[in-house]
């Protein structure tokens, strides 16, 4: 890797890291580096300073906090997908984390990093959005909680302020009988999702009571398929589910790129949502 010149800081405390970021608009946070380093390598990013938070204490680990799971920003994907706390409290996160890139990336890449990077093609933003996660950010002014729905602003943009660092994510535990599935459509195992669909459904008496659907790579941010969620409410399992999932592409603005045109992505969103809902509802 031959990046352009940058300064490198490794602050000892979170406070120092926040100050370093607040002092320099062009500074970037370095955690696992799995998104940032490729940008540096390609000279698509020219940060003046990298603020390495990789060894800061207190940002790691996965914690059971009663009504929610708290995932530290520096928890690696591998740690997350293997965590009994995640598997019990928010299994959809583990299912999606297991599909991120390849084992090498999953051992280095961090949960917080992939959210703060805010790539709509990433797997975890749509999951956190579907689960109504709450992102916790710290700055010199203190701590702030941001609902996932308010976090993803645009392509690779979040509502984090200068000087704010993501420290973790609260994933609420869902009460009742929920099923989960992450359906990722990609050409090779290591490739980005052409479309990804994260689904949680609550099912009882042969029908779907409630559905949460997050879409990857169907717009400039991760999206909730609200129309499909509404259409699925109270629907009996069977053909009606397929019809309800036809709404999955409503209000999306998928990109056109080498791997797919928007019409194909919309089609995939519908088909994959149906498959994900069926799997999550336990009707393969």
């Amino acid at each position, binding site marked *: 890797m*031959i990046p352009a010149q940058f300064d490198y800081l490794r602050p000892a405390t979170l406070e120092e890291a926040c100050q370093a970021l607040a002092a320099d608009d062009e500074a970037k946070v370095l955690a696992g580096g799995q998104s940032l380093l490729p940008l540096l390598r390609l000279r698509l990013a020219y940060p003046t300073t990298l603020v390495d938070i990789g060894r800061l204490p207190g940002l790691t680990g996965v914690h059971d906090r009663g009504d929610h799971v708290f995932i530290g920003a520096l928890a690696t994907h591998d740690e997350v997908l293997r965590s009994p706390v995640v598997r019990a409290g928010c299994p959809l996160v583990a299912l999606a984390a297991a599909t991120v890139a390849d084992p090498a990336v999953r051992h280095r890449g961090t949960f917080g990093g992939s959210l703060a990077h805010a790539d709509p093609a990433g797997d975890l933003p749509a999951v956190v959005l579907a689960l109504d996660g709450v992102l916790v950010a710290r700055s010199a002014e203190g701590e702030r909680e941001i609902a996932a729905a308010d976090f993803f602003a645009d392509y690779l943009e979040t509502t984090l302020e200068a000087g704010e660092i993501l420290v973790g994510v609260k994933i609420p535990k869902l009460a009742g009988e929920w099923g989960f599935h992450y359906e990722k459509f990609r050409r*090779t195992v290591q490739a980005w999702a052409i479309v990804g669909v994260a689904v949680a459904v609550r099912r009882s008496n042969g029908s779907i009571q409630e559905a949460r659907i997050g879409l990857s790579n169907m717009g400039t941010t991760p999206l909730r398929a609200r129309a499909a969620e509404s259409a699925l409410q109270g629907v009996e399992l069977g053909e009606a589910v397929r019809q309800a999932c036809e709404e999955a592409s409503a209000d999306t603005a998928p990109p056109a790129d080498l791997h797919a045109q928007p019409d194909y992505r919309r089609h995939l969103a519908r088909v994959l949502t149906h498959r994900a809902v069926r799997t999550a509802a336990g009707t393969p």
Partner: protein
Amino acid sequence: MTEVGTARRRKEDARLLTGRTQWTDNMQLPGMAYVAFLRSPMAHARITRVDVSAARGLPGVIAAYAGADFAEEQGSLPCAWPVSEDIVIPDHPPMAVSEVRYVGEAVACVVATDRYKAADALDAIEVDYEPLPPVLDMNDALTEGSPKVHEAGNQAFTWRLTQGDVDAALRDAPVLIDRTYIQQRLIPTAMEPRAVMATSDGESFTLWSATQIPHVLRLMLALTTGIPEHKLRVIAPDVGGGFGSKLQVTAEEVLCLLLTRKTGRPVKWTESRSEGNLTVHHGRDQIQHVTLAAEADGRIRGLRVELLADMGAYLMLVTPGVPILGAFMFNGIYKMDAYDFNCTGVFTTKMPTDAYRGAGRPEATYAIERVMDELAAELNLDPIEVRRRNWIRHEEFPYTTVAGLTYDSGNYEAATDKALSLFGYDKLRAEQGDRRDRGDPVQLGIGVSTYTEMCGLAPSRVLGSLSYGAGGWEHGSVRMLPTGKVEVVTGSSPHGQGHETAWSQIVADALGVPFDDVSVIHGDTAISHKGMDTYGSRSLVVGGVAVLAACEKVKEKARKIAAHVLECAPDDVEFSEGTFRVRGTDSGKTIQELSLATFAAHDLPDGVEARLDADATVDPDNFSFPHGTHLCAVEVDTETGMTKIRSYVAVDDVGKVVNPLIVEGQVHGGIAQGVGQALYEEAVYDAEGNLLTSTMADYLVPSAADLPAFVTDRTETPATSNPLGVKGVGEAGTIASTPAVVNAIVDALRPRGVHDVQMPCTPERIWRALS
């Protein structure tokens, strides 16, 4: 037990896998400087100004140059295969001086004390371009009024091969299959990027390069730069793959030589992956118009091929020869009386194309194997059956094909029968029927490819008749050391093939020495003084055979010395398992004892030199023709277009096998690379001529996780053109697998009215074909 035929683990692997070896980029020389190239962002433009002065003033920058600074000394990159009388070989300056013709062409460079400073300084170079229209489509390029890539026009050459009366064969043919196939542009993607290091003492030059062709490179660099051949040493240290992409004389190699001369310092350049995607020569990129005429029973009457081959912006080392190699293979394994092949080479404003694993033969094999399936569908015949009705039967060998090659040996029936049985063909056909009947959204397709290929690029006379610039011989040297160990110097230059292991096995058997007592040296023109290098599955077939021939000479020398020591006539000496014995007695000397005796030279026969070594240069009188039958079952999800290879069987006939493990490796990797073309890979340029697939996030190559476990087996009909009976295996898998996969996909979708899917068969393309 003989060594040849044993599945030895490769003796070179430990150092290659751990990296404790001399990859070019690992090496350091005192005072090393680093080179970075500024590359054209325009597909086609006149260069009106280049100003490197600001870069020259930056810290750590030793020198910065524009193309004009090299104009007097850089020469023109060579094309060694002027295939026709009408060929146009445009001037190809290693660094563009007045005009750029593809995105990525070097326009300036920086030499700095480290590679970061070199890369940073590129930003300080100013270049003014006056845009010219890009030329991106081959058909458009040939129309009158098209913008021109070169002043002489966009047609590089025309080339024809014709036999029999194709017009008559096509006229009133009961069945006529007329198809156009597109061989997409591919990027070779070797694991090790290109790397070059050069140094000079002011008079002599040494160049290290991650190249397949140190010997050819030395000659070509001498001719290009004017550095006398005897003052230029080229070293290919361990090289991490090539697939043809390092069968080249590159701009960067020439420029590094010139830069070490200009700066008086050793220089090194290592490309990034993205730089490589832009500027490593690309492969394939042909439009094939194929017309096949057949009788009502499926027997082929004749074949016509109209081929457009994209040369890219310039003709590089063997650019125009690639489609010509294919010309001899469009008829495949089939008998026919009439064949007409017409090829036009076309210039476009893209990276030049050149050899890529298979070079011409995968393209041809794809076309004929796809068309055979179309013929079967037209006649409602099983695709295996239509092949049986046309292929050369085993008792008909040697067989001279309509394209003029003489296939020496083969048994297509045996390979096919074995493959069908391993595959469970009938059962899979039954499952296919079931899925069709019940309208399963996941349909099953079965694809077959009964391929052959010409390889072991040898006969110098034939290559000469095709206007190829070099011969096809190979050289080997074998020397016994005083302790009885053996050093082998080979002229072919490995970059992953396992020469050290396979050659050791051949020598161990020939001289009766232990496998571990043989070491193989390669890749340095100062040590391996003669060679034609590695490409076209030629190493074993020509280079391995040369080593064997050298062993035979060593043995004959040793026999004379043994006879003298044993006090008998040479004819009374017999050789077995490393020991020379007087016939019918126990009295004998081992070859190791004779090595020491020869070294001491105290008691040698009169007129015998004190050396137990020999050289051999061999030039087989024919190509070799591996063949085989590959069968592939693909599941196609008709709702999404996603494909999944469910099972894959490859039965290859590569003649005698020296090391089954190496053969397996070549077959596995070859299949994977062919699957890459069928399903994943494509170099895409946009309407302005920018390469969109410059990273591996966009240029997808399959990994083991995307592929099924291949079932491989072999049949063995020895080649008759060499004493080992070997045929070569480097490209067979790639040649065979692409059509097998696409045939399977089309087979799955044929009831839905789909007769073709353009490669790579992406889910989106399949979905659109069904929509």
